[in-house]
């Protein structure tokens, strides 16, 4: 169902393009990932390691809480005056020799980029790791137009060569270990040394040899952006490997696809985010490479620069008073790394390029709740994500809000909605409530520690006993005193 705003723009990301929707519900997908012990070991090891590293460098920063508050405030202010800031950004980028394109959704964005690549006469592009281009399925769109997109981020390359899907925002191959990566390289990497070992340095060297040649022979690069400064028209990409820097500086043409929420008002605002992001995401004090560029510089770097501003459902998110805080996200992945559900189920279970707690609140808002109705329930509401978020997105609050939206969107009553209404009615009538307590006690006779209960309660009794109801409720004890 495509709803439209009063401006006539589609409020949600269109179906059939990009990667915001899974093929199955979260519980079904999670059930399958949970049966893979290798995946669970990989995830536990990786998330435990990043958690500890991040906690260590955050503890060093005495003003961490003030930085979080500042980050949240700057983003809230940005979202409050987004149209004005985007127009300012457009003006500055244009003045500096760039070209700005506005894309209402994934279909438009893919068409714009494909046209630009064709115009540049290229049949291959190199890519800087980018969530926005994964969101819109740009690689598939380019492939359909006869253009090969080569991912240059090491982990993203592993995913691409393995014909796999990313499972983490920052560490897309978090579900793979060294041995698995070696196998993928041996199978898929052109010109790889058949004696390749699973030593991390050897794996990185193999990728480097393969990528160097690609960097030097490809005329067009596509990137995302971590930040765009409205005041100056400057784009920023932060990364660890330097491969992004190669893409951003070597080709003749650079095309950047950026979600509209990535803009920040002023240059000084970067001071806050460049401290928050590396500590919250990779657990580094500072990321190794921060690349910034403003339009084009004659004789230095790409001589053509295009900026594609992507909506794809973001206006719909912005219209939701509770849900809009999800647009503050700086894609650090801290919420994934602390999430006990993500740690067990893995990123693929979320069905979207945005996994984990942030994905559970972002994906259903971008697509509309109907297409991702199980995601807001993929959480125990334990609150670890809210504590970890460097821009203080109250993820549990948004999850509960979206659950209400999921229930309200249902057109007819379900067994659950009938049971919930009956429970609420009972709880609002103390006599009925007491009768229900007595009925629960009758089940003592049924006994057997609650095994063999009918669905959905067998979800409980598959792995857990139910205690026998006590001989006396508290209120009976109180009345007898």
């Amino acid at each position, binding site marked *: 169902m495509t709803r439209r705003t009063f401006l006539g723009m589609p409020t949600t990301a269109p179906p059939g393009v990009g990667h915001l929707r899974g093929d199955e519900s979260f519980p079904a997908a999670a059930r399958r990932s949970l049966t893979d012990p290798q995946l669970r070991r990989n995830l536990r090891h990786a998330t435990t390691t990043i958690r500890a590293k991040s906690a260590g460098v955050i503890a060093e920063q005495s003003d961490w809480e003030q930085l979080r508050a500042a980050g949240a405030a700057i983003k809230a202010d940005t979202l409050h005056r987004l149209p004005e800031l985007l127009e300012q950004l457009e003006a500055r980028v244009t003045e500096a020799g760039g070209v700005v394109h506005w894309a209402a959704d994934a279909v438009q964005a893919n068409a714009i980029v494909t046209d630009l690549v064709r115009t540049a006469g290229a049949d291959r592009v190199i890519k800087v790791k980018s969530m926005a281009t994964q969101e819109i399925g740009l690689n598939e769109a380019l492939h359909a137009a006869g253009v090969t997109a080569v991912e240059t981020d090491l982990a993203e390359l592993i995913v691409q060569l393995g014909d796999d899907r990313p499972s983490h925002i920052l560490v897309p191959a978090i579900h793979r270990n060294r041995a698995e990566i070696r196998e993928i390289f041996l199978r898929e990497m052109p010109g790889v040394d058949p004696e390749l070992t699973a030593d991390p340095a050897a794996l990185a060297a193999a990728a480097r040899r393969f990528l160097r040649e690609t960097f030097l022979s490809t005329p067009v690069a596509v990137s995302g952006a971590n930040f765009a400064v409205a005041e100056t028209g400057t784009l920023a990409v932060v990364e660890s490997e330097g491969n992004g820097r190669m893409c951003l500086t070597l080709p003749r043409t650079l095309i950047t696809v950026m979600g509209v929420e990535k803009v920040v008002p002023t240059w000084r605002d970067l001071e806050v985010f460049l401290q928050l992001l590396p500590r919250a995401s990779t657990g580094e004090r500072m990321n190794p490479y921060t690349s910034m560029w403003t339009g084009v510089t004659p004789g230095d770097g790409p001589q053509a620069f295009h900026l594609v501003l992507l909506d794809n459902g973001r206006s719909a998110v912005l219209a939701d008073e509770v849900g809009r805080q999800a647009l503050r996200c700086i894609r650090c992945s801290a919420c994934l790394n602390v999430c006990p559900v993500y740690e067990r189920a893995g990123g693929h279970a979320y069905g979207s390029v945005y996994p984990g707690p942030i994905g559970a609140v972002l994906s259903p808002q971008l697509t509309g709740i109907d297409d991702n109705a199980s995601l807001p329930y993929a959480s125990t509401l334990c609150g670890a994500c809210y504590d970890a978020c460097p821009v203080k997105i109250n993820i549990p609050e948004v999850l509960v809000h979206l659950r209400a939206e999921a229930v309200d969107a249902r057109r007819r009553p379900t067994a659950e909605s009938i049971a919930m*209404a009956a429970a609420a009615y009972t709880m609002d009538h103390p006599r009925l409530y007491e009768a229900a307590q007595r009925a629960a006690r009758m089940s003592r006779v049924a006994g057997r520690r609650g095994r063999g209960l009918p669905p959905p309660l067998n979800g409980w009794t598959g792995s*857990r006993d139910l205690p026998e109801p006590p001989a006396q409720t508290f209120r009976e004890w109180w009345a007898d005193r």
Partner: protein
Amino acid sequence: MRIALFVTCLADTMFPQAATSTVRLLERLGHEVVFPPGQTCCGQMHTNTGYRSDAVPLVRRHVRVFDPYDVIVAPSGSCVGAVRHQHAMVARHAGDRALTSRAESVAARTYELSELLVDVLGVTDVGAYYPHRVTYHPTCHSLRMLRVADRPRTLLAAVRGLDLVELPAAEQCCGFGGTFAVKNAETSTAMLADKMRHVLSTGADVCTAGDASCLLHIGGGLSRLRTGVRTVHLAEILASTEQESAVRR
């Protein structure tokens, strides 16, 4: 002090010993406990499952029942969390301004047991005796919604005879999450398995917490695996005394 007991529907129906212990403990400390009639459920399950409008009459009832009292206590971090962080939201969403402000007022007078003892009554040694090896699971809502921090551990540390052992990865959720345990049973069970592994690694014979719901979950798993480790609510430990122990012996 006159203290109104918000028993919570789960403790009332399934774990009355958590509530009777709360009453005995507070009376032993010289306070008067009253049990406001007409109380049932805070509506958290409805709100958290998406049935916000079904929760409205329950919020209205809770506020009406508890509004007359100055100090309210519940043996549950989760239910107090619902009162403090959800009731006003539910009322606001229903467009009821009067209910919103009354809900906020009741919330400000509602305490989880360890908060009441340490912050309001100013006591950390409640004179309890409990000769067992005990590990403490800080439930998510006590920890991250209410920020009870070290209050329960401080109370446990002062219990005579009690050997308090640290639970590894204590701050990780046990996987309960209300209807999550049923809707996402497999993920919930995977989380529970890790929690149980950590509990068993401590060698404790009792796992305690401030929430009957999490204990229902952890205890249900420990019982299914016949581990012999018991789950006991924090209130029961704090209510235990040497005399009682002697009588039982």
